[in-house]
């Protein structure tokens, strides 16, 4: 069950192919047991705040990185980002937007909400793999999260 797993990467992506390709790109890190793929924004919020299907999950267990698609049914990526940034338990989680949208409006809005990085999914698979790997490596392995230093969480 997910609540027992120490989640490193939370992938929020409604497109099955994109999700599969992303997971494939991250294979090299051998983190497959610590990657959770959620299919839309509602699932993501339920997971992060221990609601609905994820009722009772230890919400103190936060992922090292959220890879967030923007255009999703029900609850979109912007709403997820807003909710994450406005809750003290989740507001320090690094969020990388991984989207097809190059729209200025989307970029500006996500940055205003405090996104950590914004990546436009390249159409070319090789570039796509490289981008996902870079993000996974940087945020999932290289970056020091406040939690690791024991400075946060009361």
């Amino acid at each position: 069950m997910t609540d027992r797993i120490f989640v490193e990467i939370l992938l929020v992506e409604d497109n099955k192919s994109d999700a599969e390709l992303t997971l494939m790109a991250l294979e090299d890190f051998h983190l497959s047991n610590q990657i959770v793929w959620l299919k839309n924004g509602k699932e993501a919020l339920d997971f992060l705040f221990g609601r609905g299907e994820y009722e009772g999950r230890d919400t103190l267990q936060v992922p090292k990185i959220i890879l967030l698609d923007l255009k999703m049914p029900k609850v979109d990526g912007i709403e997820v980002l807003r909710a994450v940034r406005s809750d003290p338990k989740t507001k320090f989680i690094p969020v990388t937007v991984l989207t097809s949208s190059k729209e200025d409006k989307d970029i500006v809005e996500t940055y205003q909400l405090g996104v950590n990085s914004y990546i436009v999914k390249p159409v070319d698979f090789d570039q796509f793999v490289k981008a996902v790997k870079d993000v996974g490596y940087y945020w999932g392995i290289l970056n020091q999260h406040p939690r690791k230093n024991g400075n946060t969480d009361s």
Partner: protein
Amino acid sequence: MKAKTLTQDLDGEQIKGLRPKFDSEDVLALEAYDDFMDEHHHDIAEKLRMILAKHPVLGAIMNSMTTEQLDQQDEESRILQKKAIREQDWDSYAAQLLDQGVAYAQMGLQFSDWSYIVKVYRDYAQPYISAKLTGDIRGMLLTLAGMNKIIDFALNVIAESYFLEKERIISAERDKTREALRQLTVSEAQVRVLFENSTDVIFMVDEHGIILYINHVAEGLEMSEVIGSSFYDYQTPATRLVLEAGVRGVFETGKSSVIDHEAVLKGGNRFYTSSIAPIFEGDQVRKVAVIARDNTEQVLANRRVEEMNKVLEQRVDERTAELQNINRELESFSYTVSHDLRAPIRAIDGFTKVLAKKAKGILGSQENHYLQMIVENTTKMGQLIDDLLAFSRIGRVERQLANFDMAHLIRQVFAELTQLNEKPKISFFVGDLPQVPADREMIKLVWSNLLDNALKFSSTREEVIIKITAEETPQEVIYHIEDNGVGFEMEFVGKVFGVFQRLHSDDEFEGTGVGLAIVQRIVQRHQGRVWAHSELNNGAIFSFSLSKNPIL
């Protein structure tokens, strides 16, 4: 004193009627007077002249004559007087006296002035005669009696003609006045004809707007009810206020004014343009004249035109809104389509590559070639979608107009492009480029596409030459970019700016055919034009204009 002769108008019988009847005693007295005058005439005449010269009216008459004329007149008078006394020729003397009376009347002398002469004569002559004849009492009395007789005669005759002439003058003046009055009456009648038959409504109102007089009244109204009623009561509330203020202004300033107003009448409302003019009594405006011209038909016609214009404007607005809506929908559609198309292409590309990797060693070269073709086509498809996205974005993004250094921008774009592409030797020339207010980011995209094209189609040359120049007109600045590339035939010039229109195959030069369409769209959004000139294998010149005063 040359008078208009009354004697000519009087017949001989009338003059004969003036002959005096003297007895022998009278004749003796007259002859004594005549004897005395033979000696003293000049003295007396000269003295009299001096006294009369002080009289306001007589003095003025005498001053208008020379001394000779006065002497001559006295002489003539004396001769006629003598002839009357000595030869009994009273008719000639009477005729002369009659002329004198006419002259006095014509000169505007009053009878009192004339009797003044007699008085002066008597007052002077009597003591003069008495003094000269002190030793001869009988002679003195005779002479004085003779003087009185001749004066009485002269007075009577002169009075006769004086009053006749006075009467004639008055009667002539009365006739003249009557004629003038008659003419006045005629012209007033003429004015009345004009007034009553005018198609304009002409009336007079007092300071309270009460109608005092009106030439004709509208249908359904009686002259008797209109006169005495208020002009303002026939107006719509809105125009009533305007008229009241206007009329008050005419009363206050004494200057006429023109006012448009709408009257409420039994046959329906009518529109008038009224000229309001002051009528002065002394320096005070007592009434105003209003000349109201009915222009209802014109006003209604104008209103119809206005309404039609409004309807037209509304239709244009609706149509514009509709078009904007369609445009927005189209853009949103093209955005969504392009956007959603990327995901499956990424999937095809991705899974093909994974497949190629996983199936390495299993598949033959032919099969690998097919996989390669799939990848190449998805790449191409991705490029097309990216360009299409860029193209559709231009229509949606708002322009931010500002002045900026055009040459600097171009050099920046050129540096970015040549950094990525290994090109043969490039001669790059940028002339003086005037500034215009434009969206910097959009114009950057214009230069990026034009420079990219120039570099691409000249890439086969040993030395690439690119020249950027500008010219200025009062309204706009025109930019030119010239290359020495392969160019194109002018018969295809109409196609170069179309979306997905290409003049070369991918084997020759790569591209999606969106770049120049983007250029055209950006320039058009700046109210500019874009055009091209080329010759096959002889380079191309692309030009575009930007307005100096773009509409926001």
